[in-house]
């Protein structure tokens, strides 16, 4: 160790301390990190000086060296005061290294550590989410009990943060706080409960981890989130997947009834494997009658299946154990292929996977039999892998494959790895006992091995033969004789002991040899191993009892030797035997039975797999690997007899968070649907998004099972439909998916019917399905065209439900509600109202402007991906609302004169950008005013200020003369009004163009209540507030005019106001999501006060400046 460091310090040479500037040039070179290790204490002084210098480079260098010390495990604690001063450094790298230091030493220097706390508290409010997150991380990693309340507060706040990344870190912090102070448990559970509801895939894994750590027994917290977790699973990062799957396995074992058939367990399954298909079907049918799987149970099994294809071995193993523990036995088979695949991975993965396969293969041979050859051993495998493979091969051996296996074993026996050869011999012994057909073959083979040159092989063979002979001793006198001869050559104690035991046991069958053997052994008694000595004593005793004439003296001699042996075991045994076999006056009644005791029929040993009893540990766990219960191991409970109430998993209606789906918005609505109402409209948009979703294949569920899952959701939907839909799901099970969804559709429309008429009561019997179809045909006859559109509508709704339940917004009640509403509207069909609502809608739908669809530019799946992204950023408190409609204000991007006939205008559609949640979406309309085609229009070089980003539109191949096309792009302005300059290029030319956003376009409207508004406003005072007085004519101060004017300037949302003279508007900035609150308060005498509250003071004041003239002019 020290020689190494010495070498490093030499390399760095003398220049290190003298020339700081120079040294910084090689910050990553060894000198920076390891220069110190020739450590004399003076150098620490030097470090202190560097830390106190003004230059960041010196500080950084010092920090790097300190981190080097920490990495080496050297003590750097005395630098604590000097380091902690730098915690507020502007340089992010210094800061991070200080964090590293703090986390390492804070526990030792608690008082000093407290000095840093305020810095973190400040950083927790930073607009940059990375800084917020890392502040939380460090704060929660400092193990100083005094700050527990501060941590608790920080966690609570962070768990409501807008950024899912910060929330993820909050979930991690929960565990840290819990380990620091378990008394916070109750409060932490509250936070966990809240975070479990989080819809972001980023958070899911971490919060489940926290759950497992803090309150694994509070299974009730999972109920409501169960379906969401199942559905999110595929999109969660891989580490989270492992944790969630393990947790859900435990959950399933407590909440569902066993899918396994009673009693029959293993044997039956093996039979199933061999049985013909018909048989199996019959069986499954039979089972079905008595058992129907809970749809939630099925959901879990179905949604984890794709993860078997994961590249992460831990995920594959987690799914495998889930299947093993909770899926019906007939479905477990699919995991074997994936597990076998893992065997190609590195040594450590192989080791764990093979262990688990070994356990499985004991119970279910059939599963791995097709992969028998994958377990063949290579000479290059490490011994531990070899023995595990051998174990599995043994488990898989049966009459059919034993001959192949034995041939394979023959190769192994000759292996240079003697430990492995010995294991092989044992294996052969086990096969011989398990498969009676080959017992003789094996025995012969083993006897041949007795003449092997290698002692270990011979010894092991002897031991195994001993065990085999014990099972059928009668006919093997020859072998015993042969083995007796071996005593001269074999030196391995176990083998010698085995031979002696064997001779003793069969002494009556080899009457001539046995006394001779005893004689030989008596001669060398003192030099034998303890194990052998014990067996000599035994042999002596047995011979004394059967053949005392020849051996009496010999035995007594041996007993005398044993009496003075060094080993107390042997002395004890000697005494015991003497009392038992040599009759004297003191010997009790027992000696009469000595013969019975020594020569009793002994049961043959059972050669069992060492993995036999491991199956009571959950597969894939540490406890399973170690075969002992590890600390913190949670037992997998047995299936409950009766399933707990499944309705606990139903989710109440959650406020429907608005989804922004470009495809949906842009899609022209079918006019027939438009009259349905506003909420309807929204659903439709989400509906179409779900369409694209399922097309893309990134969705979690499987398409063909759509019908199924809508079944599930309808079951949740509401209690009134419950009985009905239950029968539906039962019927559904027996049909193919397609048929299912079809009939389902009908039934659904029928449901609505029922409700409408209120006369029919829904009947839950199975036979109902026919009546259902009848009535649905009724409704068809009622009005054909209508019911057709209606049924189409319902399918849509189904789709939507499917999509939503996937995201777990789950507005099932809404679904029922929609249907009801549908009915009502249907009743009042009235052309007039239809027209009116159409108009309304147009007003409300700002995207009615003809716009080139972004759809072709993006594959549907990408949209789905992006949509998820948007979804994850909506917060619980602040929801982005629809922008108030304003006339589109276009700006010239490129004039046709300067653009050689290509004209470009841009406007801000005020939609959340589909290309990134921090981007402002910009629509560009390109016009070709020339008389020839303009080809290859694209965006060339970009000159963006630091931090700004731009998502360009796709190259337009060609634009016809007089043609016009609108494309959309996204620009992240970083909440500044800086100009985005870029080049608009055609095939031949490039034009420099600029987009400067009006400050009002950097916002997204936010919906909030007046109360929230006031609360937020209260927090944004002082520096964050700007205000001005406006003077204007009273007619300009009517509510509608103010609204009009404000929204024209800025993309803000209207906050309902209780007071007539105060108008409030709220928005958030696109990039950082900071709130922007605008208040217009009317005063007497045609004046008004305009107040803007925001963290982004610069934008705030710019906005104020822009609003003022607009509001004051006539």
């Amino acid at each position, binding site marked *: 160790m020290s020689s190494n460091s010495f070498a490093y310090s030499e390399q760095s040479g003398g220049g290190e301390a003298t020339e700081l500037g120079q040294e910084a040039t090689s910050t990553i070179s060894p000198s920076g*990190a390891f220069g110190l290790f020739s450590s004399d204490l003076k150098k620490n002084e030097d470090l202190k000086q560097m830390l106190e210098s003004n230059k960041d480079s010196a500080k950084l260098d010092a920090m790097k060296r300190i981190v080097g010390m920490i990495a080496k*495990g050297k003590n750097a604690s005395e630098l604590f005061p000097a380091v902690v001063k730098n915690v507020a450094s502007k340089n992010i790298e210094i800061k991070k290294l200080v964090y590293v230091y703090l986390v390492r030493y804070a526990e030792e220097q608690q008082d000093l550590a407290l000095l840093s706390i305020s810095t973190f508290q400040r950083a927790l409010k930073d607009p940059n989410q990375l800084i917020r997150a890392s502040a939380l991380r460090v704060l929660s990693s400092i193990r100083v009990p005094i700050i527990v309340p501060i941590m608790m507060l920080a966690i609570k706040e962070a768990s409501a943060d807008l950024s899912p990344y910060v929330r993820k870190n909050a979930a*991690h912090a929960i565990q840290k706080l819990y380990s620091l102070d378990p008394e916070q448990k109750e409060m932490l559970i509250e936070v966990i409960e809240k975070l479990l509801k989080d819809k972001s895939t980023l958070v899911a894994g971490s919060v489940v981890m926290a759950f497992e750590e803090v309150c694994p027994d509070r299974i009730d917290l999972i109920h409501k989130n169960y379906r969401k977790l199942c559905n999110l699973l595929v999109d969660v990062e891989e580490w989270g997947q492992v944790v969630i799957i393990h947790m859900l396995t435990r959950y399933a074992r407590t909440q569902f009834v066993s899918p396994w058939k009673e009693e029959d367990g293993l044997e039956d399954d093996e039979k199933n494997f061999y049985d013909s298909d018909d048989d199996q079907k019959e069986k499954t049918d039979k089972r079905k009658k008595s058992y129907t799987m809970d749809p939630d149970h099925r959901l879990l099994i179905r949604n984890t299946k794709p993860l078997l294809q994961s*590249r992460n071995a*831990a995920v594959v193993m987690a799914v495998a154990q889930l299947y093993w523990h909770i899926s019906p036995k007939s479905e477990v088979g699919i995991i074997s292929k994936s597990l076998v695949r893992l065997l*190609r991975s590195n040594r450590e993965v192989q080791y764990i996977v093979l262990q688990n396969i070994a356990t499985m293969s004991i119970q279910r041979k059939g599963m791995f039999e097709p992969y028998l050859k994958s377990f*063949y051993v290579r000479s290059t495998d490490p011994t531990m892998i070899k023995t595990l493979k051998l174990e599995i091969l043994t488990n898989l051996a049966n009459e059919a494959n034993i001959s192949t296996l034995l041939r394979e074993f023959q190769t192994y026996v000759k292996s240079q790895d003697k430990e492995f050869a010995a294991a092989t011999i044992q294996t052969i012994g086990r096969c011989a006992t398990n498969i009676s057909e080959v017992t003789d073959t094996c025995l012969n083979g083993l006897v041949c091995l007795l003449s092997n040159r290698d002692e270990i092989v011979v010894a092991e063979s002897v031991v195994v033969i001993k065990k085999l002979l014990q099972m059928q001793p009668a006919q093997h006198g020859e072998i015993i004789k042969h083995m007796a001869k071996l005593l001269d050559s074999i030196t391995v104690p176990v083998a010698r002991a085995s031979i002696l035991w064997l001779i003793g046991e069969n002494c009556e069958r080899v009457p001539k040899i046995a006394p001779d053997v005893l004689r030989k052994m008596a001669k060398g008694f003192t030099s034998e191993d303890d194990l052998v000595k014990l067996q000599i004593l035994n042999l002596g005793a047995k011979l004394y009892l059967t053949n005392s004439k020849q051996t009496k003296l010999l035995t007594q001699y041996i007993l005398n030797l044993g009496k003075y042996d060094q080993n107390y075991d042997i002395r004890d045994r000697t005494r015991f035997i003497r009392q038992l076999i040599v009759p004297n006056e003191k010997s009790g009644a027992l000696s009469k039975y000595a013969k019975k005791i020594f020569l009793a029929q002994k049961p043959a040993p059972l050669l069992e797999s060492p993995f036999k009893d491991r199956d009571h540990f959950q597969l894939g766990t540490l406890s399973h690997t170690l075969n002992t219960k590890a600390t913190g191991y949670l037992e997998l409970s047995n299936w409950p007899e009766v399933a707990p109430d499944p309705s606990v998993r139903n989710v109440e209606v959650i406020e429907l968070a608005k989804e922004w789906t470009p495809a949906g918005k842009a899609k022209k609505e079918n006019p027939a649907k438009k009259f349905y109402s506003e909420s309807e409209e929204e659903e439709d948009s989400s509906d179409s998004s779900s369409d694209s979703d399922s097309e893309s294949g990134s969705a979690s569920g499987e398409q063909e099972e759509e019908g199924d899952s809508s079944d599930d959701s309808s079951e949740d939907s509401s209690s009134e439909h419950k009985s009905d839909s239950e029968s539906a799901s039962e019927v559904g099970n027996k049909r193919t998916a397609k048929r299912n969804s079809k009939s389902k559709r009908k039934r659904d429309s029928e449901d609505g019917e029922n409700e409408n008429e209120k006369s029919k009561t829904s009947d839950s019997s199975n036979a109902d399905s026919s009546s259902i179809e009848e009535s649905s045909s009724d409704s068809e006859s009622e009005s054909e065209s209508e019911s057709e559109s209606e049924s189409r509508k319902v399918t849509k709704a189904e789709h939507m439900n499917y999509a939503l339940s996937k995201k777990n917004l789950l507005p099932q009640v809404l679904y029922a509600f929609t249907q009801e509403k549908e009915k009502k509207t249907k009743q009042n069909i009235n052309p007039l109202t239809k027209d009116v609502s159409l108009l309304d809608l147009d007003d409300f739908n700002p995207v009615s402007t003809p716009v080139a669809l972004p759809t072709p530019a993006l594959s549907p799946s990408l949209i789905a991906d992006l949509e998820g992204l948007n979804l994850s950023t909506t917060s619980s408190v602040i929801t982005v609302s629809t922008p108030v409609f304003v006339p589109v204000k276009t700006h010239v991007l490129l004039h046709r004169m300067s653009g050689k006939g290509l004209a470009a205008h841009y406007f801000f559609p005020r939609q959340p950008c589909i290309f990134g949640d921090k981007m402002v979406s910009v629509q560009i309309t390109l016009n070709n005013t020339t008389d020839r085609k303009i080809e290859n229009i694209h965006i060339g070089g970009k000159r963006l200020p630091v931090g700004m980003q731009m998502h360009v539109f*796709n190259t*337009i191949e060609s634009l016809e003369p007089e043609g016009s096309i609108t494309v959309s792009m996204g620009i992240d302005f970083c909440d500044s009004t800086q100009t985005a300059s870029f080049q608009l290029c055609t095939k031949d030319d490039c034009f420099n163009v600029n987009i400067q956003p009006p400050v009002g376009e950097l916002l997204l409207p936010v919906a909030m209540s007046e109360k929230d508004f006031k609360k937020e406003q209260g927090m944004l005072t002082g520096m964050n507030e700007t205000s001005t007085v406006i003077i204007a004519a009273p007619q300009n101060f009517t509510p509608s005019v103010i609204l009009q004017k404000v929204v024209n300037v800025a993309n803000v949302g209207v906050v309902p106001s209780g007071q007539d003279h105060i108008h409030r508007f709220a928005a958030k900035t696109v990039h950082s999501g900071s709130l922007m609150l605008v208040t217009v308060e009317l005063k007497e005498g045609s004046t008004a006060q305009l107040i803007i509250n925001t963290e982004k003071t610069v934008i705030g004041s710019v906005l104020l400046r822009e609003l003022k003239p607009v509001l004051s002019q006539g």
Partner: protein
Amino acid sequence: MYTKLFKLFSLQKMIHSLFLINCSGDIFLEKHWKSVVSQSVCDYFFEAQEKAADVENVPPVISTPHHYLISIYRDKLFFVSVIQTEVPPLFVIEFLHRVADTFQDYFGECSEAAIKDNVVIVYELLEEMLDNGFPLATESNILKELIKPPTILRSVVNSITGSSNVGDTLPTGQLSNIPWRRAGVKYTNNEAYFDVVEEIDAIIDKSGSTVFAEIQGVIDACIKLSGMPDLSLSFMNPRLLDDVSFHPCIRFKRWESERVLSFIPPDGNFRLISYRVSSQNLVAIPVYVKHCISFKENSSCGRFDITIGPKQNMGKTIEGITVTVHMPKVVLNMNLTPTQGSYTFDPVTKVLTWDVGKITPQKLPSLKGLVNLQSGAPKPEENPSLNIQFKIQQLAISGLKVNRLDMYGEKYKPFKGVKYVTKAGKFQVRT
């Protein structure tokens, strides 16, 4: 005192500490994510290492009185992690390998020297990869935005401009649900290359017949495409693939329904899929070996004679052939003459390596000569098995063929390329 007490009844899940240990048993780096665990915990590991004799045989999971040690062995280094409670062992193992991969990725090699040279970056990486023992960011593109890999140029620039290697904004990938790709990728030459690499795992017995053979393949991609390309790769014969594991970017459902690989690729090099060709198919074995190895009874020498020839090579040349033989312990030395290539014998490890090169069918390469045995020792029981490496360019032995690559979402025309290689995997000939 306070904290100490608490620790007694509040145990921590997941990875507690990490120690890096070199071959000579020095702990040269330690990192604690929670309270500090003394280095002495590694003594249990050393004990196990001693017992195992061979590094390969050190058990990956060791139980000690207060902790569990889960370790991996990579590139002559042990990564030993300290665990306190129940955890899926594969979780830790997989993570440790990911750490090693990341080092490899950042420093070009995962060696003691590289880690020591970059100890600060290593620390920063470990800090980002694990929070409180739970993995935080393991995607290489996210890490690279947070902590830039070291280059000489960058360190020079940094020292002048005072900028740092540490990113100050949250990587774009971290929040999106395509965390493997960052936004705003830009290339002047847009290229997408795919390497289809197949490896033949086989055991050939004494007589030359195949005991076991299967084909394991991977498709490695090198994608340098601007923007957010959405690719789909289809095969002529996708049914060949029996078992597949995917990079997370691949849309599973498309594969299930259409057998098309559809994905938004990560930027740069990555492994797209790995697959196994169904074992029902007969595997073509491209080489055969004629061997005659014998050790004479009661004499201190033996004969060694092997010849390699092509077989079922689909008309391609087999190149890069290397034969490795672990000779029995009693072998002292070997005097051999190769007709082609060169050979070495290491008398300490008893490993014979014959670097053959290419096979020319006119004159088959062979290696002949005498083996010197330790006198007096019994002759070896068994002949050593031969491990063979080879390579065949422009051929996927399974017959897998990429049909086409389509790109959606971006308008430029990328340059596309597919390369096929067949290699020997664990190819063993028993003699």
